[in-house]
């Protein structure tokens, strides 16, 4: 018998609030976390809005905030969400749990580059006549101007490293970065580490902010972001005919994954069971999904198969639903293919209509939403849904939350490079 994995703790800091409860209930209320960008002056950028954390202070969450003073946003958001999840799961300072069997698998993004120094130093060392930067000039300036800790914290292994160190988590320790699928992938592979016996518990999820000048520049250049600057709260409109790109968000979501018998023995509260995981690659293009959705189809099928379910068992799909033209069309197509004539009967909604797109952390925040949906029996809506698109013809739970008891939820995450990950969470039945 394969080891069963249950979820025994959750934590979140997102644009909809700094707890799991806020994340979920504000979605049920159809609130948007999107507003004009305050992290930096974006007033002349093609996109001037995003879903930022408002008034986040790490000291509200951890006992020793000074330990984190050099850490970047990824690690700080992650610390707050991890503290919640570990507290929720009864794992803080719990010496009865073998800390060497408790690991970390995150999908965290790169840290934020030092935009000001970087561009100023490049500019100073730039030689227009050669259209090139003079390396030795850049190096000389960089050695005195760059701040070592800030540079170090950009490395992607620092966030899981800090968490392991601070919370005493000595099991396997990983970070993956598969673009927008990263934290879902982390949760899937963390589940597999426990199934294999490498650990009994894993802290898993993701943390990311790309709401900084280089991040917005990069996505604007790829024309991936909505530029509906007149009405930011309405800009993220997944599956709507007039959708025009995604809206950046930031934050972290963390879950405690635990082997069932281990959870039972210590009397842990069980939220749900993580039953299915699938990972595939489109192997098609760097930014475009395969037009037939072949990777997404295979991925959803793999996750449902892994859960030992038939597609009919899925009661709700938390979609990737980015609000880009291509994603929402192809995801719809893929869902229709996987679920056949039953597809129209399955509620499909996008948390990104309210949360924005948390990039690497998106999957974790959305899986937490899926778990809460099983717990509470209310499906969050897709807000800003006004004009149906003939090519997107599923039940997107438009604008208003809906009461429905669901036992199995499918959560999709798709990323640049053709990365596809699907997870299935199920109501726990002993």
């Amino acid at each position, binding site marked *: 018998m394969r080891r069963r994995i249950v979820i025994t703790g959750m934590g979140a800091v997102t644009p909809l609030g700094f707890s799991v409860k806020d994340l979920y209930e504000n979605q049920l209320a159809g609130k948007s976390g999107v507003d004009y960008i305050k992290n930096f*002056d974006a007033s002349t*950028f093609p996109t001037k809005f995003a879903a930022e954390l408002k008034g986040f202070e790490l000291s509200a969450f951890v006992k020793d905030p000074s330990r984190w003073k050099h850490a970047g946003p990824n690690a700080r958001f992650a610390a707050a969400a991890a503290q919640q999840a570990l507290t929720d799961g009864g794992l803080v300072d719990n010496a009865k749990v073998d800390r060497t069997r408790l690991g970390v698998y995150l999908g965290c993004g790169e840290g934020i580059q030092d935009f000001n120094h970087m561009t100023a130093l490049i500019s100073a060392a730039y030689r227009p006549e050669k259209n090139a930067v003079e390396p030795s000039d850049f190096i000389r300036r960089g050695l005195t101007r760059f701040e070592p800790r800030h540079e170090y914290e950009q490395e992607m292994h620092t966030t899981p490293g800090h968490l392991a160190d601070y919370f005493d988590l000595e099991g396997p320790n990983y970070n993956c970065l598969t673009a927008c699928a990263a934290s879902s992938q982390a949760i899937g592979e963390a589940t597999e580490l426990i199934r294999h016996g490498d650990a009994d518990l894993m802290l898993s999820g993701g943390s990311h902010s790309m709401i900084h000048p280089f991040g917005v520049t990069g996505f604007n250049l790829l024309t991936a972001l909505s530029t509906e600057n007149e009405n930011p709260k309405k800009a993220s409109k997944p599956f709507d005919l007039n959708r025009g790109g995604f809206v950046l968000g930031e934050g972290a979501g963390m879950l405690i994954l635990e082997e069932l018998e281990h959870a039972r023995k210590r009397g842990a509260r069980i939220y749900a069971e993580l039953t299915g995981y699938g990972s595939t690659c489109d192997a098609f293009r760097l930014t475009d999904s395969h037009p037939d959705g072949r990777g997404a189809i295979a991925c959803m099928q793999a996750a449902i198969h892994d859960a030992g379910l038939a597609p009919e068992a899925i009661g709700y799909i938390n979609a990737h639903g980015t609000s880009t033209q291509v994603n929402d069309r192809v995801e719809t197509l893929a869902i229709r293919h996987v679920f056949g004539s039953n597809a129209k009967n399955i509620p499909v909604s996008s948390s990104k209509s309210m949360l924005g797109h948390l990039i690497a952390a998106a999957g974790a925040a959305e899986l937490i939403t899926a778990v809460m949906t099983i717990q509470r029996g209310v499906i969050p809506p897709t807000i800003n849904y006004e004009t149906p698109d003939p090519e997107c013809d599923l039940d997107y739970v438009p604008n208003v939350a809906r009461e429905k008891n669901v036992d199995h939820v499918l959560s999709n995450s798709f990323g640049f490079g053709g990365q596809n990950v699907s997870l299935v969470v199920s109501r726990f039945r002993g």
Partner: protein
Amino acid sequence: MSVANRRVVLTGIGVVTPIGLDAGSFWTALSQGQTGIKRIGGFDPSPLQTQIAAEIIGFDIKKYLLTREERKQIRVMSRTIQLAVAAANLAIADGKVEKDKLDRTRFGVEFGAGLIPSELDELGIASQTGTESNIHATDPKIWGEKSIGQIQPLWMLKYLPNMLACHVSILHDAQGPNNTITESDVASLLAVGEACRIIQRNQADFFLAGGGDSKLTPLSMVRQSLFGHMSRCNETPQKAVKPFDKRRDGTVFGEGGCVLVVEELEHAKKRGASIYAEVAGFGSAFDRGLTGKGLGRAIRAALAEAKISPADVDHVNTHGLGSVPLDAFEARGIHEVFGTSVPVWSITPNIGHLSAGSGTTDLAASLLAMKHGTLPPTLNYETPDPACPVQVLREARPIAKPYFVKIGYTEMGQCGAMVCRRWE
């Protein structure tokens, strides 16, 4: 076949290193004790305290991408991506893989990757424009209005860490499981470990797994200088990296990467593949405070899965950076499990520190040593250090036992260990 019985073997090696651009030349250079470390030639390194590195000279991605369609992608490939793409092609060739016969949906890609440094020239004009009103700080208003339009549209795609794996997936039509582990120096070792697990659990039969890295750019070298851990032996580049030696004073960076063909045993047999080794065990752990206990735990987990004891191990292939504190940490971890009875080996003096690319490149070195029956010495080891209680060989010796262990770690404490068994 029951899932529990699925065995995983390594059937192809693709390496791109400062001392050899394929498995054959890499092995020849290793067995002859060559090193690729010398004064940096790619740019003027004179303001740096460490002015030496192991650069790959004469690498041209066009040698690996032959069609027009493939070459169109070069403009979105940073050097790190190019090295990985080349290594993947070499692995396919070395493994004599007929790609058309593979089941695409059972063909996965797992990579280890690090932070990919921005190429400065690409941001030159945009940065100059952004600082036109104040040379010390970019005005975000000017940046938003003018600079963004001066950067090429696909700019960001060159620097996303998952693009190594994504380019490789597209070039080889690999539609199976796909992941990129971004765990610094232990990344590609963990990537191979994860690929093995995925094959064992019957979600794929075939993987290209590996990693690549190049930190030999002005920006990365500035960053690494600020982090410390680098040798200052600029006058004696060939002798600069001295793993576990009392005189060691830091590491030296290299560039390169290695991709392995990782395959389910029956799948390999069916296509008549020649097998380098079986992956017999894998483990990972976090070493809090770098005591060596966590590294020891990862090694023990890998040995336990392989069902062998320390006495069965021919050698331990180490990260062996030449760093004062980190070599001592690594030695403590090895000593925890093996005492001083098993020789350790480091190829960092030969190829430099390959970061995310190091795990699989080191692994390839041991696979080749097992194949050729000889374990080369660790270069520059002269003065034992009581803080590094491990056995370091100064002379080559014949391979004596069927298993080797490859270990890796990060300076934060993330550790991995893999046990491989020579195939006979």
